[in-house]
């Protein structure tokens, strides 16, 4: 066995049954692994129409064939389930070390079904698993429980994946955390774990992962490592400032959403930038498993320390909330990590609440905490904690911006797509990226088709961010390639230096195959369509391929990108065409047959 372990661990929390299953390798390769394979299994094993918090939902923790290998930056795993936030398929990605450990323990993926009567956790060591009691851990914060579970295992090399109180309380914004600071953040996947009374999955693996073709592998990896070392982004930019370097870039272009997307330029952004972070609070870099890039930030302010904040977090809690206090953002990030919350959605939900408060729609007497005012450092910190603890008005915030705004009859003030909060780029100033927001299978997501790369950073080539020409094909290509990278087990940041040929070469050498890059991309397209079909069956219709009204109708009011709206109405039909879908946005029978998922 090379690349794949060839084994799936199936755990039923209702019956207590634990089963080792042999992985159908042909099926695994058809969907590559990770995101693709788990989506395939989920599609076949649950009715897409179920309530995501019902015990009939399943949650899959999936590694890729290259996770835990010698290839660079392969510490990734996916958490795949039906999302309670958006009702779409959820595939939330995380780095760190837990995924690699699961491979060394002998499993490609874990499928968790049913619901435990009492709080429990799963303990896995070298091919064997048990369900253990977690009553004494329920209610604990992520860093505490991680420390205690490692201690209880008796082995300091044990890796912990867990939910914090937010997941326990079924927050729509709950993340699944691992290695204390890493997050499978989006889509409320933590609530699914919480609904099953599953607090953690603890893994220790001492197995060795050997490539199919060791000589070939050695050569390919030498070539790939050289590319990463010689690329400015992976060798200089990311290691020096992390993702936070983007704050000033995006702001200088005037696409830095401010005050819940009411403006797009933040005057004091430099105070909450990557440069400011490096100057004031950065302690050291952090790297995930086998990663030469080491983009992680470990920061400290007073007695608050930990990994982060990332660019998205900096944005969500600063400009989007009108706050320019970096220390407060670090503290808000820390609460999200400890309670297990998606920093993007948490910050964006607070921003939405701030606009509702500003407009007098949320009244002061409803708010049992700091006034929800734009610019308030106190508000972003305390409301993150209250959201994580589901305390008072915080329990409403914990449902996300869409449900919050909808309750007040102002759903259009939730800056979200398919109820997933939009990240840190104003699509009115980046047309292709806006198309990605509207069409991503999990909702308002930036990372599954990161058009900022060509439209802003000029990688692989510089596109005109305001132009519509050719964008539909670019978006499709980025989406398909991202599905490949996610499913293989790589970190997306390798894609600044590597191309699909490199990923294919590494797959071939490690798994023992002879694929062409075209076959990889086709698999990516297959995965994308599979996710689309799941969503359609789940009742998420093409009408949801949209953007908030503000971004379609109101031009950017300030800054260098002033005057632009997003032209989705023109781009969407082109996108459906490129995807081979009908005019309604439904994958055609022909396309599905071609991809062999009819």
């Amino acid at each position, binding site marked *: 066995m090379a690349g794949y372990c060839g084994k799936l661990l199936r755990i039923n929390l209702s019956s207590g049954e634990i089963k080792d299953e042999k992985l159908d390798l042909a099926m695994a390769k058809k969907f590559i692994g990770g995101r693709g394979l788990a989506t395939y299994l989920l599609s076949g094993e649950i009715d897409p129409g179920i309530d995501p918090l019902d015990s009939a939902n399943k949650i899959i923790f999936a590694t890729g064939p290259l996770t835990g290998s010698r290839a660079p930056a392969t510490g990734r795993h996916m958490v795949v389930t039906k999302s309670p936030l958006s009702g779409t398929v959820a595939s939330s990605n995380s780095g760190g070390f837990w995924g690699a450990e699961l491979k060394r323990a002998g499993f490609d993926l874990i499928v968790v079904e049913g619901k435990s009567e009492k709080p429990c956790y799963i303990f896995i060591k070298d091919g064997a698993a048990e369900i253990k009691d977690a009553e004494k851990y329920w209610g604990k914060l992520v860093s505490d429980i991680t420390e205690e579970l490692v201690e209880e295992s008796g082995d300091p090399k044990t890796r912990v994946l867990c939910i914090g109180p937010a997941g326990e309380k079924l927050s729509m914004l709950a993340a699944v955390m691992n290695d204390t600071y890493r997050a499978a953040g989006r889509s409320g996947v933590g609530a699914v774990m919480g609904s099953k009374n599953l607090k953690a999955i603890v893994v220790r693996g001492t197995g060795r992962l050997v490539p199919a073709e060791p000589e070939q592998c050695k050569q390919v990896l030498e070539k790939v490592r050289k590319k990463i070392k010689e690329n400015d982004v992976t060798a200089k930019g990311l290691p020096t400032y992390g*993702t936070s370097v983007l704050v000033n870039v995006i702001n*200088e272009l005037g696409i830095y959403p401010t005050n819940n997307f009411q403006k797009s330029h933040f005057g004091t952004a430099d105070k909450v930038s990557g440069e400011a972070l490096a100057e004031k609070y950065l302690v050291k870099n952090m790297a995930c498993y086998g990663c030469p890039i080491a983009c992680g930030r470990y920061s400290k302010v007073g007695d608050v320390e930990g990994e982060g904040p990332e660019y998205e977090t900096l944005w969500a809690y600063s400009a989007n909330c009108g706050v320019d206090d970096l220390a407060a953002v670090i503290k808000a990030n820390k609460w999200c990590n400890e309670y297990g919350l998606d920093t993007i959605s948490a910050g964006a939900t607070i921003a939405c609440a701030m606009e509702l408060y500003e407009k007098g729609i949320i009244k002061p007497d409803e708010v049992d905490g700091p006034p929800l005012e734009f610019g308030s450092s106190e508000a972003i910190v305390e409301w993150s904690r209250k959201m994580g603890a589901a305390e008072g008005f915080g329990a409403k915030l914990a449902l996300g911006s869409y449900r919050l705004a909808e309750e007040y009859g102002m759903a259009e003030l939730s800056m979200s797509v398919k109820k997933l909060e939009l990240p840190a780029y104003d699509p009115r100033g980046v047309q292709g990226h806006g198309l990605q927001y509207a069409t991503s299978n999990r909702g308002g997501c930036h990372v599954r088709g990161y058009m900022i790369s060509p439209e802003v950073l000029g990688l692989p080539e510089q596109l005109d961010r305001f132009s519509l020409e050719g964008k539909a094909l670019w978006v499709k290509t980025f989406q398909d390639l991202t599905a490949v990278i996610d499913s293989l087990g790589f970190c997306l940041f390798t894609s600044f230096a590597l191309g699909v040929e490199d990923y294919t070469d590494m797959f071939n050498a490690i798994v023992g195959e002879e694929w062409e890059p075209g076959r990889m991309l086709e698999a990516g397209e297959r995965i994308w369509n599979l996710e689309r079909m799941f969503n359609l069956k789940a009742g998420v219709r093409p009408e949801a391929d949209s953007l908030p009204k503000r971004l379609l109708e109101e031009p950017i009011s300030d800054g260098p990108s002033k005057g632009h709206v997003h032209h989705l109405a023109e781009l969407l039909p082109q996108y459906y065409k490129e995807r081979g879908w009908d005019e309604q946005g439904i994958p055609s029978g022909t396309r599905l047959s071609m991809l062999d998922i009819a």
Partner: protein
Amino acid sequence: MVVEVRLFATFRKGRFKKREMEFSEGSSLDDLLKRLKISKKEAGLLLLNGQYASWKDKLAAHDVVSIFPSLGGG
């Protein structure tokens, strides 16, 4: 003519964050880069008044120039 120059990330080391600089009429971004001792290769992202620019572009009075090294993020 006076132009505002903003530097970011590693370009700030040994230089400045924001400064007004004087250039003669007809000067280009290339002249500006040369004066700051930033090579064309190093300059990853060049913005003129928030829009993409190349080193060949000419400067005008009161322009705002933003210079970033090669970048990536998410």
